[in-house]
């Protein structure tokens, strides 16, 4: 976005949006184009805007070709591939002035003629496909590949790269390979024969994707759980978290099944609901397995009672909340960061929970591992707050790496020998002065047996209704949260750190903010940016808040939930914090951030960004 919107000749920097009907198989055509560009060494992002429906409703896919490697949604469309009659009008409106509209000219579309400031590219796709292929379903699918061919020609996408991709997909099904290749050529050749190509907006080989992959956050998180050594996954299906468990299962089938015996070193429990799913995780974790559950907002609401039990009885528990638009059922296929407060303070009574905020799929992988380490070290529920944008969209990330020296931090679990060495085992005693007690696992030793309960208990593990005994445990739990600040990942600072104006944010806002920083820089506005990776906030967060006079808190919800958490859980003065909010359900983009910061700084000159 930085500077180029008005530029005519935009190599490797433009946005193509595909408007389609869901359930018609357009996904493979869209990702074919995206992957081809990626393999040409050009950074891309793909954002999928799909309905909460299985078949027949409008769906969009947006490919951003971004030589700068920006990860955020762009807020304009350069090329619209308008394949859905129902949304034609809306889709055309969305196109920027000077943009290109590609449509299926098999049927005349008079409405198309209404904008003079765009270039309309007509391709008789249905006609071409129907003349060359049989079968209703087949024709629908191949029409998508045909428009991929059209785009390939218009954007100058390397045909050999596309062919390679097709071969990889259909290599074992020669008939399909043949029809797909032919369909692709239909579109490609039509353009080459009938239209001027390539467009000024086009792709050129680069070298910027080497050592990178295209992956979605749920896949990465599922893989992270496998690498972390999780053996029990429990869940109840819910968009947009379902694919996390699908991924875990898939990787386990691959890596965790004994080739000879067929024995599985994992168990996936499809629970009857989310209450049961988190109960299973608590049961399994209590019993010494690494266990987790992926869910989304409604699931978190249902898990509240059990989360309180996990907090108070100090049972490890890893919960992935792939956030979607709330409240209530909300918009299940749109993204938001609306569960921050409910996760931080889930359940009745005095509770407080550890949160991790991955910013992209890469971090989903690493933070999945960290989540288990933290949950076991701290003996408490840990939430990984991803969202639909991270979880279900394809992001360009550096290759995932694994350090074979990694050993899981199982926390303070006593072995049989250790128990035998004790005079007596007391479950909730603060022996090490770090507010973390020791635990034992069932099956280890009768001497280490204790009784786990969510009702009042004293530090020895006994039942109590005594005020003082109750408070000893509750006070230690509060101190444990302080201990947690030492274990959670530190924030990431971008910028010199010595500006008076700062941005604080979390998770999937990262791409948009980094892009916004570039734009602001071009406008000579320099600000520091701190991306928080975890709650509780550690000293680095406090220091940043303290050292900046004006702080913009960027987040994707209506009620400024991150700002609320900062206000409550740090020493920051409220008057320093300004919210920049996005809660449309679409991933946040850089534009509004830039605009709001500029507006705010202009309105209050004292806020002007200067190095301290």
């Amino acid at each position, binding site marked *: 976005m930085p500077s180029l919107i008005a530029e005519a000749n935009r190599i490797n920097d433009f946005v193509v949006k595909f408007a389609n009907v869901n359930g018609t198989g357009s996904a493979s055509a869209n990702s074919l184009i995206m992957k081809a560009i*990626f393999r040409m060494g050009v950074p891309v992002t793909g954002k999928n805007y799909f309905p909460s429906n299985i078949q027949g409703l409008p769906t969009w896919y947006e490919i951003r070709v971004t030589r700068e490697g920006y990860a955020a949604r762009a807020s304009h469309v350069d090329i619209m591939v308008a394949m859905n009659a129902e949304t034609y009008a809306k889709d055309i409106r969305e196109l920027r002035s000077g943009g290109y509209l590609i449509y299926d000219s098999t049927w005349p579309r008079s409405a198309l003629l209404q904008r003079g400031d765009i270039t309309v590219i007509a391709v008789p796709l249905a006609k071409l496909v129907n003349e060359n292929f049989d079968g209703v379903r087949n024709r629908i699918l191949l029409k998508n590949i045909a428009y991929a061919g059209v785009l390939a020609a218009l954007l100058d996408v390397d045909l050999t790269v596309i062919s390679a991709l097709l071969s990889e997909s259909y290599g074992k099904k020669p008939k399909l390979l043949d029809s797909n290749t032919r369909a692709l050529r239909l579109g490609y050749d039509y353009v080459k024969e009938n239209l001027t190509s390539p467009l000024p907006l086009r792709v050129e080989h680069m070298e910027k994707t080497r050592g990178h992959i295209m992956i979605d956050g749920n896949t990465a998180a599922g893989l992270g759980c496998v690498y972390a050594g999780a053996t029990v996954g429990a869940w109840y299906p819910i968009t947009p978290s379902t694919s996390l468990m699908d991924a875990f299962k898939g990787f386990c089938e691959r890596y965790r099944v004994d080739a000879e015996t067929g024995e599985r070193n994992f168990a996936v429990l499809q629970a009857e609901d989310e209450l049961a799913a988190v109960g299973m995780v608590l049961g399994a974790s209590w019993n010494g397995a690494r266990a987790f559950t992926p869910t989304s907002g409604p699931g978190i609401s249902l898990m509240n009672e059990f989360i309180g039990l996990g907090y108070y009885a100090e049972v490890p528990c890893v919960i992935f909340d792939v956030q979607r638009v709330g409240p209530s059922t909300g918009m299940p296929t749109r993204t938001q960061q609306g569960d921050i407060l409910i996760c931080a303070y889930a359940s009745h009574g005095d509770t407080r929970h550890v949160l991790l905020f991955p910013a992209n799929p890469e971090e989903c992988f690493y933070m999945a591992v960290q989540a288990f380490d933290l949950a076991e070290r701290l003996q408490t529920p840990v939430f990984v707050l991803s969202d639909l944008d991270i979880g279900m969209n394809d992001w360009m990330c550096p290759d995932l*790496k694994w350090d074979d020296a990694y050993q899981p931090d199982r926390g303070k679990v006593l072995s049989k020998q250790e128990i035998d060495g004790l005079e007596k085992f007391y479950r909730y005693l603060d022996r090490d002065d770090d507010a973390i007690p020791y635990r034992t696992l069932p099956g280890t030793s009768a001497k280490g047996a204790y009784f*786990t309960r969510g009702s009042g208990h004293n530090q020895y593990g006994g039942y109590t209704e005594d005020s003082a005994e109750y408070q000893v445990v509750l006070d230690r739990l509060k101190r444990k949260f302080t201990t947690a600040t030492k274990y959670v990942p530190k924030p990431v600072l971008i910028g010199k750190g010595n500006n008076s104006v700062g941005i604080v944010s979390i998770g999937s806002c990262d791409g948009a903010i980094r892009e916004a920083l570039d734009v602001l820089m071009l406008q000579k506005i320099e600000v520091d940016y701190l991306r928080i990776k975890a709650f509780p906030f550690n000293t680095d967060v406090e220091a940043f808040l303290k050292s900046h006079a004006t702080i913009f808190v960027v987040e994707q919800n209506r009620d400024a939930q991150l700002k609320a958490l900062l206000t409550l859980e740090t020493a920051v003065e409220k008057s320093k914090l300004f919210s920049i909010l996005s809660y449309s359900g679409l991933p946040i983009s850089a534009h509004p951030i830039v605009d709001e910061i500029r507006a705010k700084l202009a309105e209050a000159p004292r806020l002007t960004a200067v190095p301290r």
Partner: protein
Amino acid sequence: MSYINKPKVAHPSLPTNSLGLTRRQYEGSMSTLCAGCGHDSVTAAMVEACWGLSMQPEQLVKLSGIGCSSKTTAYFVSGSHGFNSVHGRMPSIASGANAANRSLTYVGISGDGDSLSIGMGQLVHVIRRNVNMLYLIENNGVYGLTKGQFSASADIGTKAKRGETNSSPPIDPVLLALTLGATFVARSFSGDKAQLVPLIQAGMRHNGFALIDVLSPCVTFNDHEGSTKSYGFTREHYHPAVEADFVPRAQEIAVDYPAGEAIPVSLHDGSRVILRKLDPLYDPTDRGAAYNYIENKLKQNEYVTGLIHIDEADNTEFHTLNRTAAMPLNSIPFERLSPGSVALDKLMARYR
């Protein structure tokens, strides 16, 4: 509630089991239930059953929800881990715990409120999932701990202590379990320890989900005239249909039963259950027939007790279905769980 610990000094003359442990060593904390509560008889039966099985205390896991009944787990085998979870959700804790370590013995203790109201969904699904555990319901027709409201197992027409008459039909956990395909379904009475102990032992050894519905009167809120879950009423209306003797693996069957009268059923671990039909019309191995028999008796206000249905052949226990490794999942070395850097590097190709 378990803050009062009983002294565990074993008297030298007390009989010991094959582990050399006395019954006292299978006790737990002092009960804080009302004097005479049926649940305490279940506690006693659990102690006896575990002692008799020569259960290694730490090999047992005790799980429960919330209620007077759910407190029971604190009162036996203090040498085993207990988990007193939240109201009605013990089955999910049990499912998770069992998934993590298939090698331990799981006993869940619940109440009729805990299981049939707030816990209905989880009960149904733990049966369906066929988790290898004994699930014992201490059924008294009321919510004891919250002071005597009718539970979902209260019979139509039964009277509350304060005079109200229950008008909703009861949910019978036995019929429910049969409908859901449970492979071990029993009913007993807290007042009949002789019947209950072998049922518990068999249930603990059954390779799959075993349900025992124990009529366990609440002396404080549901033991009056007009209640159908009182001691008096239960004693009069309970109808033992199949007696079960439990024979541990090592032991030879001493007595020969006349053919046709006794049905020996071999359990997974080599132990056996010898079923003696008290009613010749009854066949505990035929689920449909069992269902009808129970239902007809219920219509006549008779609670059929005993090992109502058992099916050792139909082995669909959770881990068998899942094809879980024999080694408990919580003990598999990390090296075998994490695929390592080489595999990861290789995998990356898929995402380019």
